[in-house]
C-alpha cells in the first residue's frame, strides 16, 4: 500500500470532503486567519465561529485561561448577528480552498430556525453545524443539548428549513449523551459533532475572583480527550449517522483514537493554538499509518476498536 493511494475522503451527509479534518468552530476564525501558516486546500472543512440572530458583544474579559493540558474559554459567542454577517462576511468565504461550514447558535427554537434558514440559503455555506451546546451563554450551564426534548425540537425546526447537511453539536455535560444523540438523529440530524467543551471554572487565589469574566467556561484540549473518545464511542453505538469527533486532538495518534472509537471525521480546535501545522501533519501521517496497516481507505477503520474481550477471572461480588 502506497501513501498516495490511501483514500482519506469522507462523506458527512451530503458533504463530500477530500480530508477527514474539520477545524473546530470558534477556534479558526473563518479560515483566513490561518492561511499564512497552513495550506487550507489540505484540510477538510472550516467550521465558522457560531453566529446568532442578533449581534452579540460576548462576555467580559478575561475570556481565556490556560489549565493543565488544556484551556478554559468563555468567549460568549461574540458575533455581528446574522444580518451583518450575510451582508459583509459570507461572500468572502467563497474564496476558501476548502469547504466552509456555517455554525448557528441561538436562544430559542425560533432563533435557530430563522438563522439556519437564512445562512443555509447561501451558496458559500456547504453545511450547517447546530451549536446547541455552548456552555458560555447558558443559564447555569443548561443548554438545549442538555435536554432530549429541547434537542429534538430545535433539530426538527432547523431540519425543516434546509436540505443542506445538518451537523448537531452535542454537549458532554450530560448524564446520557447517547440518549441525546438518538433524539438528534430521530429529529433529522445528518451527523453529530461530539463533543463541545466540558464545563469548568478556575479561581485566581490572589484576587479571589474567577479567572474568567463569565465566571465559568468550557474546557478544551488534551485534558478532555479521554472524555471525548468515550463520548464518541458511546454515541457511535447509539446512532447510524456519522460523527465528527473532537476534543484535544493534536497528533495522528489522537485522531486515530477517535476514528477507532467510531468517528468518521475529526475536528481540531485547541490544537491549532499549539501549532497551526497540526491539521496537515495529521492528514499526512494518517495516510502513512493506513498504508503501513494496508488499509486502502480510512473508512475501513472507523469504529473498529475491538472491545470484545471478557474478564477471565471473577469473584462472587464481581457480578454485582
Amino acid at each position, binding site marked *: 500500500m502506497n501513501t498516495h493511494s490511501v483514500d482519506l475522503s469522507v462523506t458527512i451527509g451530503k458533504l463530500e470532503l477530500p480530508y477527514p479534518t474539520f477545524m473546530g468552530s470558534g477556534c479558526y*476564525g473563518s479560515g483566513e486567519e490561518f492561511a499564512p501558516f497552513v495550506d487550507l486546500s489540505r484540510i477538510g472543512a472550516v467550521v465558522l465561529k457560531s453566529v446568532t440572530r442578533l449581534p452579540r*458583544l460576548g462576555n467580559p474579559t478575561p*475570556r481565556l485561561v490556560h489549565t493543565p493540558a488544556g484551556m478554559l474559554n468563555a468567549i460568549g459567542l461574540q458575533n455581528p448577528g446574522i444580518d451583518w454577517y450575510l451582508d459583509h462576511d459570507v461572500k468572502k468565504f467563497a474564496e476558501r480552498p476548502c469547504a466552509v461550514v456555517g455554525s448557528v447558535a441561538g436562544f430559542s427554537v425560533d432563533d435557530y430556525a430563522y438563522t439556519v434558514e437564512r445562512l443555509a440559503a447561501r451558496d458559500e455555506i456547504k453545511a450547517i453545524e447546530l451549536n446547541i451546546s455552548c456552555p458560555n451563554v447558558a443559564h447555569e450551564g443548561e443548554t438545549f443539548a442538555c435536554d432530549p426534548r429541547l434537542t429534538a425540537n430545535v433539530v426538527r425546526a432547523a431540519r425543516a428549513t434546509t436540505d443542506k447537511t445538518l451537523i448537531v453539536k452535542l454537549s458532554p455535560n450530560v448524564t446520557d449523551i447517547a440518549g441525546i444523540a438518538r433524539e438528534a438523529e430521530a429529529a433529522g440530524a445528518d451527523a453529530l459533532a461530539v463533543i463541545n467543551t466540558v464545563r469548568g471554572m478556575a479561581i485566581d487565589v490572589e484576587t479571589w475572583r474567577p479567572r474568567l469574566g463569565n465566571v465559568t467556561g468550557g474546557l478544551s484540549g488534551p485534558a478532555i480527550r479521554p472524555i471525548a473518545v468515550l463520548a464518541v464511542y458511546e454515541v457511535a453505538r447509539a446512532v447510524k449517522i456519522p460523527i465528527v469527533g473532537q476534543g484535544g486532538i493534536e497528533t495522528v495518534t489522537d485522531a486515530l483514537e477517535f476514528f477507532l472509537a467510531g468517528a468518521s471525521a475529526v475536528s481540531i480546535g485547541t490544537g491549532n493554538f499549539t501549532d497551526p501545522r497540526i491539521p496537515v501533519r495529521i492528514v499526512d501521517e494518517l495516510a502513512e499509518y493506513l498504508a503501513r496497516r494496508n488499509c486502502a481507505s480510512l473508512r475501513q477503520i472507523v469504529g473498529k476498536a475491538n472491545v470484545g474481550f471478557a474478564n477471565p477471572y471473577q469473584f462472587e461480588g464481581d457480578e454485582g
Partner: protein
Amino acid sequence: MPTVSPSAVHDVTVIDRRELAPGIVLIGLHAPALARVTRPGHFAMVIPPSGETAATALGIYEAHDERVSLLFFAVGKRTHELATLKIGDPLGVIGPLGNGFTIGDARDVAIVAGGVGIASVLLPAQRALAAGARVRLYYGARTRDLLVERERFAAEGCDVLVATDDGSDGYRGYVTELLAQTHEPPELILACGPSPMLRAVARTAGEMNVPAQLSLEETFACGVGGCWGCVVPLVRDSAQAPSFPPAERQGSDVVYARICKEGPVFWAHELRW
C-alpha cells in the same frame, strides 16, 4: 498602526541564551526570514517544544540581520520550559504578528516600560533613534535587579530614567509618576507593561495632552485573530475597530477588538477600559 505582516511558521535554532536576572531569560535565534520582516511592536507565538498545549505570546526584542531575540520572564509552565532551551535546540516560532508602533516623524519620544514590557520596546526605540529623535526610556521594576538591559538602551542612545517600587534604584515609586513629573512633555509616548501601568500612562498622557500608543497584554489562545479570546473594548468609532455592525445601533458605545489582530498596540484615547 497599519503594518500588515507577512507572517509564517519559522523553524529556527537557538544560538544564544542568557539569564539576565533570576527567572529573566534572553534567547537569541537564528531566524533570517523572521528578522527581515519584523517591525517595532510585533510579537511572536512560540510553539512549546514539549508539545504543551497552546503557543506562548512573546514580544520580539531584537531583530537584525539573521537574528531575532526574545526576552521573557519564567512565570508559568510554558515560559519555564522555554527557559530550559539550550544553544542548538530547534524552536517553532510563528510571526511576526500584530500591528506595531507607529513612530512617524516624532522628534521627542518617551517610552515607558514596566517589567517584562521592556521586551517590546527596543525595536521602537531603535527606530526612533535612527530617525533622529530624542528617546527617553522610563523604566520601572519592582527592584533594582529586575531592571535588565538598561545599559543596552543607554548604549543605543536613550536617556534612561528608572524607578523601582522598593527604591533600590532611581525614583522610589511608579515609573508613571516619574513620567508625570517631567517638565519637557514628549511629542509621543509609547508604552508596554502591566495593565495598571498602562492605565496610568493613558491618564498621564491625557493630562499632558500627548498622544500615546499602548501595547496591551491578555491571555492569548490563537494569537492570529481566530478565537476572539483576547479582546479589549474600544470606543465605537475607533479606526482600529474590527469589521462589525455599528455599535451605536446595538445600544453599546464600545466594540471589542482583538488585541492579537487589531493590536497589540492601540491609541490610548481609543481604549474604553
